[in-house]
């Protein structure tokens, strides 16, 4: 009768509705329904906050302050050489509607990023799959990573030589196999863009490979085997088991690459500087020209701000996808079904 002693000991009436419920419960199961008198205090958050303060202050100094300045500049015509800044009623933004180079810059940037992304992810995953099966994996990874280690400026210079119309090896190769006409790679407004994409793919595919390879290591062997026993061939196995497993890794890779691509300028400045005839005048290059060639700092700030905004929004969309894999899974399920 210990059960009842506990229940009625809390000062309840002898027969309460609760007692009826208790009586209906299976006997021999002890029910304890009271709360502890005192809770142990949780560790103080103030300590953690204090520990973070220096880095918060530093971060504010090096990133938030300039960011506020950027917004300020984008709303003014920034005076040169000591002239005062003048408020210009959002003229920096409204003129985008008629600014052909700005619109063209966006178009080219999207084209460029899309091409890079598709090629890099495709090639990167393919390489990762090959490497994952190779016995020389460690050695090959080291070799493949080399382009990534190179500063983009240096990579640009290397490719500038390779594309050179007089002695460039790729120039010679492409002309010999008949792909390239009498022009040079970077001198032809139809081809220059592909020239730039090739450099980016060459330099950054290894990153995708590396991240994907890490993901592939995590694909459970028994799921692959179960799928094989279920009747899947290698390709089907990759698509239905490996891919869903490496999907979060791929998303991180894509996020990194796309944010990088949107602000990429080093090699482009070295290779084409936006030419020929604006064929590679992508937004970052245009931004550079406006700000540091024509010194229209207000307009430059406005361009930079739109670029930043789009990057943030797209980044958030990708992160959202990453955070909520179930959505992707549903899509996946529907594709299958």
């Amino acid at each position: 009768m210990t059960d009842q002693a506990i229940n009625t000991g809390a000062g309840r009436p002898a027969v309460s509705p609760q007692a009826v419920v208790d009586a209906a419960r299976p006997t021999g199961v002890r029910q304890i329904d009271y709360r502890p008198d005192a809770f142990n205090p949780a560790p103080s958050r103030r300590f953690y906050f204090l520990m973070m303060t220096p880095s918060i202050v530093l971060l504010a100094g090096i990133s938030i302050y300039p960011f506020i300045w950027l917004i300020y500049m984008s709303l003014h015509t920034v005076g040169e050489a000591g002239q005062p800044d003048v408020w210009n009623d959002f003229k920096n933004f409204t003129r985008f509607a008629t600014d052909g180079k700005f619109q063209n810059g966006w178009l080219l940037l999207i084209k460029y990023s899309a091409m890079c992304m598709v090629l890099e992810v495709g090639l990167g995953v393919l390489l990762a799959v090959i490497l994952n099966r190779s016995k020389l994996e460690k050695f090959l990874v080291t070799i493949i990573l080399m382009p990534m280690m190179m500063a983009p400026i240096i990579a640009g210079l290397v490719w500038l030589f390779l594309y050179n119309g007089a002695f460039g090896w790729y120039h010679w190769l492409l002309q010999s196999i008949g792909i390239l006409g009498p022009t040079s790679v970077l001198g032809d407004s139809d081809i220059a863009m592909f020239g730039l994409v090739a450099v980016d793919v060459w330099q950054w595919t290894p990153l995708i490979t590396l991240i994907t390879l890490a993901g592939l290591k995590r694909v459970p062997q028994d799921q692959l085997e179960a799928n094989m026993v279920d009747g899947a061939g290698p390709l089907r196995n990759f698509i239905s088991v490996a891919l869903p497993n490496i999907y979060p890794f791929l998303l991180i890779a894509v996020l990194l690459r796309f944010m990088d691509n949107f602000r990429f300028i080093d090699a482009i400045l070295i290779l084409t500087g936006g030419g020929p005839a604006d064929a590679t005048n992508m937004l970052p290059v245009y931004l550079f020209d406006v700000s540091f060639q024509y010194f229209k700092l207000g307009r430059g700030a406005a361009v930079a701000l739109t670029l930043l905004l789009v990057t943030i929004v797209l980044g958030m969309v990708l992160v959202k996808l990453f955070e909520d894999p179930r959505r992707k899974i549903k899509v996946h399920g529907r594709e299958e079904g």
Partner: protein
Amino acid sequence: MVEVNIQSVWKYYGKTAAVKDLNLKCPENSFLAILGPSGCGKSSTLRMLAGLEHISAGEIFFGAVRVNQLPPKERDIAMVFENYALYPHKTVFENMANPLRLRNVNREEIDKRVRRAAELLQIDMLLDRKPMQLSGGQKQRTAIGRAIVREPKVFLFDEPIAHLDAKLRAHMRGELKHLQRRLETTTIYVTHDQLEAMSMADSIAVMHEGVLQQFGTPSDIYNHPANEWVAGFVGEPPMNFLNCRIEQGTSGVAVVHPSFRLILNDVQRRLLEEKGAEVEVRLGARPDTIAYRPGANSGLDVPAKVYVTEPLGGDMIVEVQLGADRLTVKTKIGPSANLDDPCTIGFDASRVHLFAASNGIAYF
């Protein structure tokens, strides 16, 4: 559906042989358990049957078909993995439907078969869940469901219930056996748990260090172990072994231990003669064949001392010190005893086993 025939199969990993010259035959629709401790080559054998592992030497036949070179998808098998190997991004339904989808079965047929299998396994209310939302037992049922939606030639089970809790495991043993009888499919079941093998299988293959030790019915394995290793591996608590000598006395042939003498019966004596027994032997006695009584001079033949008693509710395990040897005895529950309390024990001469001391081969 088909007879499985393993002929002189070897498996090498580099220079280490994991399976050595294995010969096994699992008749049509019967349940074969491959039993052994970890690293004995039982999983390698199963994986070779599944086609997940290359067969280093020898041949495997499913019926008349030699399957050595066939990839898993062409062997028409279904396998349940130790860790279930469910696809985490798919629902229970999709997990179970996967083998059918991969074989381009039409939509209604898939729906029908998955639901039927789910009902059989009592998971029909979980079909929309993801594996992450399932308990261990439910995951395991899903994994079995994925295997039975098709009608494969052979079922392969790789320790499917090893990770369940003890109570559920006991329950699933019965369920699996029932399922196998009902589906009437050749089944090969790998386990390290002798209880699973003994309770479920039609025949058991006991493996140790890549070598098949004994192949027979559960009762064969338990009552007539082929060697000392099998005798010690099968049975819980394990069999006791004592170093003894065989002596020809006036009252007949006897097994002699420093503490006691056991006179052998005629059948046992003949077996010893037929097999050319050595003088040095190992005597094996299962804990439940040894009688135990507490107290000095309590009526049994062999005086001994108690080492420890372990009451188990209805039964009691008593460890007994007999000279330099220690024996495990299983008896009905009785009063606990302290270290070095005197007791007497008695052997049932007709139920002991003798093994050659040199190589462990059983005489009887």
